[in-house]
């Protein structure tokens, strides 16, 4: 029977190609628009490390002065140098890493390639383990070199290919801000979206940095933070040494806590740390600290911003209008076929049979609408990626979204068909036959 209805359905759709095309197009537009908006939200709102995000945490401490204090305010996004060094020294948690942004100059020594600025990151060997950074060549520097502030560097695949082509550059010297650094590793293709580890300073869809230098080396070279620095109080101590002692927050800190117990221990530790610092004359505000896991951190930083949410709302509003529209068109179509329904009912078709026949027809419309929607989503995502996300190449449709698009179209069309189908099933054979 299903195949028969399918045949009836396609035949009826072909009988009125303009109306059918209109329904398919409208449904396709609605589905395409909403799936485009949804995909962007899905990508930005995704979990970049689903298997580990519950174990990675960002501690926040409030080192502000009493002036400008508003109870209930969140602590700053970043830590001061003093707190970073204390937390590193206490070495709580399974692993920990501190990072801050750099913009060093790279001199390749090649005549055809004048020195250039390159986005960089001061970090620790633990960074590459905690965030499971894949390596193409070599690997991270070793921890002993790190403590000595050694001149070693990890570079991105992109920078490596720009400088050395497709050869393995590990062991070579790279000149950074007029000093030689030994290349210990080249990161393979790695682009976490959102770029969770450094949301503040570069944004959620930025590519990774290209030069990774040991934290202690960057401090020894007196490299200032290239990013967001927030100071409270005023320090008159001159130079970089004065900057390190000031209550300026510019370092982002991550800690890995493997289980619930270590999380609660770490919270206690932060509380005790705050009390201890207060005794030393720092952190005058009432105890105010936070410990957020990766997903909470993404939400706290509003990675999915108001614009993106609003666009999604409006896109689904658009789909709703399209649905109501299709309801109207189906009503028109089915009403016009009252005579045919009357004959079928008179010949013994039950109401259920009529409902089934017309549902099959709406499913066929939905399937075609889904295909149109799929094409439009691809087109829409290409536009959004190119102009909205700066050619990040991240707003892509995956298999689950592909199925979701078609499913959305079919479900939409069936929903739209419910009322018209029900109305069609109400046709009384006698009335129709009489008026013929």
């Amino acid at each position, binding site marked *: 029977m299903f195949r028969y209805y399918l045949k009836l359905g396609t035949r009826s759709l072909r009988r009125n190609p303009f*109306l059918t095309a*209109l329904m398919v197009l*409208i449904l396709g*537009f*609605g589905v395409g*628009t909403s799936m485009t908006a949804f995909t962007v939200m899905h990508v930005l709102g995704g979990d970049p490390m689903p298997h580990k995000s519950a174990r990675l945490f960002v501690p926040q401490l409030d080192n502000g*002065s*009493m*002036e*400008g*204090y*508003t109870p209930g305010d969140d602590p700053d996004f970043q830590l001061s140098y003093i707190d970073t060094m204390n937390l590193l020294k206490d070495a709580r948690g399974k692993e920990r890493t501190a990072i801050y942004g750099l*913009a060093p*100059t790279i*001199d390749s020594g090649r005549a055809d390639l*004048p*020195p*250039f*600025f390159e986005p960089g990151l001061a970090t620790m060997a633990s960074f590459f383990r905690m965030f499971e950074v894949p390596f193409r060549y070599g690997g991270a520097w070793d921890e002993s070199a790190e403590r000595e502030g050694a001149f070693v560097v990890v570079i991105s695949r992109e920078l490596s290919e720009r400088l050395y082509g497709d050869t393995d550059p590990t062991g070579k010297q790279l000149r950074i*801000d*007029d000093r030689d650094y030994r290349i210990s590793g080249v990161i393979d293709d790695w682009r976490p979206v959102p770029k969770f580890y450094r949301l503040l300073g570069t944004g959620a869809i930025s590519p990774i940095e290209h030069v990774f230098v040991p934290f202690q080396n960057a401090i020894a070279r007196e490299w200032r933070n290239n990013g*967001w620095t927030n100071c409270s*109080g*005023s*320090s*008159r*101590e*001159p*130079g*970089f040494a*004065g*900057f390190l002692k000031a209550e300026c927050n510019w370092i982002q800190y991550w800690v890995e806590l493997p289980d619930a117990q270590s999380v609660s221990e770490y919270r206690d530790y932060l509380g005790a740390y705050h009390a201890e610092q207060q005794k030393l004359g720092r952190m005058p505000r009432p105890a105010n600290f936070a410990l957020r896991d990766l997903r909470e951190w993404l939400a706290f930083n509003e990675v999915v911003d*108001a*614009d993106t*949410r*609003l*666009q999604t*709302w*409006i*896109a689904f*509003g*658009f789909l*709703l*209008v*399209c649905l*109501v*529209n299709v*309801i*109207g*068109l189906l*009503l*028109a179509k089915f*009403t*016009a076929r009252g005579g045919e329904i009357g004959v079928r009912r008179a010949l013994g078709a039950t109401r259920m049979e009529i409902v089934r026949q017309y549902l099959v027809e709406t499913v066929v419309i939905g399937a075609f609408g889904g295909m149109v929607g799929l094409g439009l989503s691809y087109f829409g995502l290409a536009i*959004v990626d190119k*102009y*909205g996300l700066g050619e990040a190449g991240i707003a892509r449709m995956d298999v689950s979204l592909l199925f979701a698009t078609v499913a959305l179209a079919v479900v939409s069309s069936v929903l739209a068909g419910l*009322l018209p189908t029900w*109305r069609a099933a109400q046709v009384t054979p006698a009335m129709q036959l009489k008026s013929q």
Partner: protein
Amino acid sequence: MEIKPILSTLMRNKTGVFVIAAQVALTLAIVANVFYIVRDRLNEANRPSGVDEDNTFMIRVGAYRPVIDPFADSARDLAALRAIPGVIHVAEANQMPLSQSGNNSGVSAARGQQQISSSAAFYESGDSLIDALGLKLVAGRDFAAADVIEIAAGGPPPEGPYPVIVTQALIDKVFPGEQQPIGKALYLGTGPNADEMRIIGVVAALTTPWGRASWGLANAGDVSMIAPFRRGTDSPLYIVRTEPGALDGAMKAAESLLVTPGNGRVLGNNRSMNELRERRYRGDRFMVGLMGTMTGLLLVVTASGILGMASLWVNQRRKQIGVRRALGATRFDIVRYYLTENFIVTGIGIVIGIGLAFALNAVVASELGLERLPLPHLLVGVVLLWVIGQLAAYAPARRASLIAPATATRSV
């Protein structure tokens, strides 16, 4: 007017009325709110910066070898840049309007305040930013050579009091209603040890490096100040203003003067003010385009829905129309009947839509921090939908008017 027969016809076709009214209502709610958001974004993206934008650019250079005497270097750079043909003014500064990178500081109206009065973008220049950016001085004076304070590389800011030039927006926010701002004290930061500054000049406008909404500067896009600091730095930023038409040539000349092979320098940014504005508001403009496209499609879909339903009604009532024509109704009467019917159905949708628009606006307002939907926007949406409804209904109405009176005598 045949309102009563129209109403009783519609009462017998509730589903059709519902379908059209629902579309109109949803469309109105979306369109009115999108208009509002789009207008807000465009206003922001086109808000004047106070800068002579067409003739101004920035160039920042960095060093890959240690810099021995930054002051001597920048004096040489300034002289070289001033010698470029077509260049009128050059200033070294710490930050550039709309460049999305820079400093801002909290300022207080009185010493010892516990909370800052406002955040303000903190521009520093030992030269004249008024000249280099083409700012309009509305009160007081520009800095004189004697006002300039040199700060060694990495050195702390000076203790007050020192002179500052502020924007009118800063006066309005920190000293509301103040008519005589010249000579007033302004404090950097909070508490008893806040540094004192003296306002010596007021400029009409100078936008911050971020434009409006960013880093605690929400709705304070023009709250800026300039301090007369000349800071030793190994990555100086120069702001250059040229004669009309000389910008492109001057940008190229500046680059080749400041960065030469082997001089130990790296080019940072070399961008015109127009490019900075474009980059700053690219996202907003994209959102405007996206929303505009969606709204356009939405209106087309709604119009097609109205057209389809009106056609259906005409087809169903061919006989009735024939009878009316046979009984003496003119073609115009028939057209008017269908347009009035559409006006009523659209009107039902509009009434519901106004309610929906305000409901959606509550969401928009809380998400984007916008104020309540202004009535004129809603009115534009209302008029637009009525017009679209009438246009969409016209073709079927005209077709209905062409039905021959003889139709009444035939059986369908």
